[in-house]
């Protein structure tokens, strides 16, 4: 293997710095993050788990239309934003609610899409988080555009673009990586490989040795990490972001994780996978292993645990408070945002609906 290939191909094994039992391991290329970082990460994981579970409950209470959960994938969610600076951008998929909130976007604004009162509820420029949408991988080319614009402006912005294993089959994934490479754009393409695209398993999605191996086709270095190891993810993603920021061009990172729950609340996973496929992954839970490690290191005491739980509980309250009441929707808003200057046709149609509503039985 040439050194070019070595540079571009991922590690033979996914990078793992803390194993599922909480035991740390050295790695030739990556260092364990600082204790403060890991403690902060722990709190983020606890909060992330609570967000996932609370949101799932809220769907079953009729307060959200749908919730694609990242339960079990919280290490990926949280690592993706912990390695970013304030001016950097995050491009999430519809499953990355926890990631968006961990970037500092208001939780209720984050959930607007899934509650259904509008298509996106937050100001993308407030925290540099692109809006979520349903199409897969299409936002990756937007990520390239944002990154390239930053370069043209002489800024050292890095864009973290999230994608799933299924999304890597889409044409836009291919085009985005190719464009990013050709334009030397500072984008970290972060694939959360949770092994399922609704019901289609990874083996049907790709037979590449790993999804990170795809990078070499574009000249983009790929790396792979254990997606349930927050420490490994922070190290790998952190390095990818640094390289991109240093002008080395786009990076591809694959996290091996698992979608422990169904695609959404409306999916029945028992139709396409056995329970005993899922069970081993429960042992690989990201919170479990980090907690074991931190406790063993004497870094996590009861007070710290309580603080983390308290923060999570507060977040859960915030979600319930924000989502129990019925959202206020104004049909007039349907006609307002299409164009900077409202067209005559928009005005007419708005008037039509106003007239209908005025004649509505009270």
């Amino acid at each position, binding site marked *: 293997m040439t050194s070019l290939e070595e540079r571009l191909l991922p590690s033979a094994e996914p990078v793992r710095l803390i194993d599922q039992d909480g035991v740390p391991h050295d790695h030739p290329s990556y260092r364990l993050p600082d204790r403060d970082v890991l403690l902060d990460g722990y709190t983020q994981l606890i909060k992330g788990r609570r967000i996932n*579970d*609370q949101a799932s*409950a809220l*769907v*079953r*209470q*009729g*307060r959200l*239309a*749908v919730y694609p959960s990242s339960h079990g994938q919280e290490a990926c969610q949280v690592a993706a934003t912990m390695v970013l600076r304030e001016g950097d951008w995050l491009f999430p998929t519809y499953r990355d609610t926890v990631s968006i909130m961990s970037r500092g976007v208001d939780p209720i604004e984050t959930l607007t899409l899934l509650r*259904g009162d509008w298509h996106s509820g937050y100001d993308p420029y407030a925290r540099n988080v692109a809006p979520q949408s*349903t199409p897969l991988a299409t936002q990756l080319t937007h990520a390239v555009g944002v990154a390239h614009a930053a370069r043209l402006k002489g800024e050292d912005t890095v864009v973290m673009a999230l994608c799933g294993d299924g999304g890597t089959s889409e044409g836009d994934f291919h085009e985005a990586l190719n464009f990013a490479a050709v334009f030397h754009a500072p984008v970290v393409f972060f694939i959360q490989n949770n092994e399922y695209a609704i019901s289609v398993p990874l083996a049907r999605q790709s037979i590449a040795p790993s999804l990170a191996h795809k990078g070499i086709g574009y000249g983009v270095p790929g790396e792979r990490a254990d997606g349930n190891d927050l420490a490994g993810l922070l190290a790998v993603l952190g390095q990818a972001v640094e390289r991109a920021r240093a002008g080395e061009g786009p990076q591809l990172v694959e996290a091996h994780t698992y979608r422990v729950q169904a*695609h*959404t*609340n*409306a*999916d*029945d996973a*028992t139709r396409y996978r056995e329970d005993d496929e899922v069970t081993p992954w429960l042992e690989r839970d990201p919170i479990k292993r980090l907690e074991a490690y931190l406790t063993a290191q004497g870094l996590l005491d009861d007070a710290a645990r309580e603080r983390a739980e*308290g923060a999570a*509980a*507060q977040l*859960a*309250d915030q979600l*319930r*408070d924000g989502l*129990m*009441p*019925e959202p206020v929707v104004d049909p007039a808003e349907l006609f307002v945002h299409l164009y900077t200057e409202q067209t005559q*046709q928009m005005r*007419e*149609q708005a*008037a*039509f609906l106003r*007239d*209908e509503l005025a*004649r*509505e*039985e009270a």
Partner: protein
Amino acid sequence: MNTFLLPDLGEGLTEAEIVRWLVKVGDVITVDTPIAEVETAKSIVELPSPYAGTVGELHGEPGTTIPVGKPLITIAEAAPAAGFGAEEPPASAETGVQPDQAGEAYREEEQAGSGSVLVGYGTGERPGTGRRRARRPHARTGSVTISGTSLPSRANYAPETASPAPLVISPLVRRLARDAGVDLKALTGSGEGGLIVRRDVERAIAERFEPTAPVVAAAESRTGLAELRREPMSGFRKAAVATLSRSRAEIPEATTWVDVDATPLVELRESLRSAKDSGPGLLALMGRFVVAGLLKYPELNGFVDTERDELVQYDGVNLGLAAQTDRGLVVPAVANAHRLTTRALDGEIRRLTDSARAGRLTPYELSCGTFTLNNYGSFGVDGSAAIINHPQVAILGVGRIIDRPWVVDGELAIRKLTQLSLVFDHRVCDGGTAAAFLRFVADAFENPASAFADL
């Protein structure tokens, strides 16, 4: 008390079956405690409670089916003085919305029918049928409406004033004008913004007559008087003048009249009046008898075909009635009056009178009459040598009905008297027939029952 209504679980659910309860009455639970397993179309779903407190009521046994939006479980709120642990639901005042009201409002929104969905609320059944919205008011004179998704809007679409193409309400009306040779550009439309509507074209057709006799103006030198005023004759008046002159010029008419004791007729009319139903009017009753008389003496219900030298009698009566309008006298006719009941005849008379006043009579209505009944009694006079409504052949006038002295059974009495005057075209019959018809009608007025056999 908070009631958790069965939510729409995003699968087009309209109901769910309770598989088993995970709590029982009296249990103290926290928010998100799983309270039941329900079966949906696809799988079993565990439902977490949105409320904390004590389980008050389970709204169904395992195995029962609960519709979406109906109560599933009721939970008594924890005492307000309890410490606010992380799991307590917030006080309603802060959210401003009662939890079950919120649920109710949410339920109401999801009322439309559809099937299974993977990524959304799904939908439930829509209750009730029929309109839920008041109807939009529509102006009668053909406002400029825009269909589809735009609003009826007049202001934005006012027509250009620089020689626009004429505005016509529909292709059917354009055809009507074209077939009648009416020039649309010469019309002023009565609809909004000058829109030409059907009655504009019909009126133009009705008013389009050429005068046949030239009108000779009297010279001022003849009288030595100044002219008080001079008015051009309207198209309407010219048309009427033409008909009247022609009538007098062509028809050798004769008149015969008789005084009639109309007391029984008036009594008959009153007897038909009740609390619920004002009954047919006098004119309708008179009309009924006249129609019966014409069926008996069809010579008076006809037409003189001078071209062929033939006398035509019609099979049926279109009864013309004189009506005074702002523009002048018009004589619309009740078509097929012989087929109508008295009540129906009354209705038609009223309708035609209204149409006449509104200027909405159709050309057919104005010209189809075969005989005219002229009730000029409202003018306060008794007799009249009326002008026959050419091309009809007779006209029956009825004067005022007033109390007069009369002899009844050899005694003087005050009776309701009226005078009937029949003017007839002497070409169609002799005095005997005319008198017989007149006598028939008079007898019917004086003794309605006697006419019954011929009604």
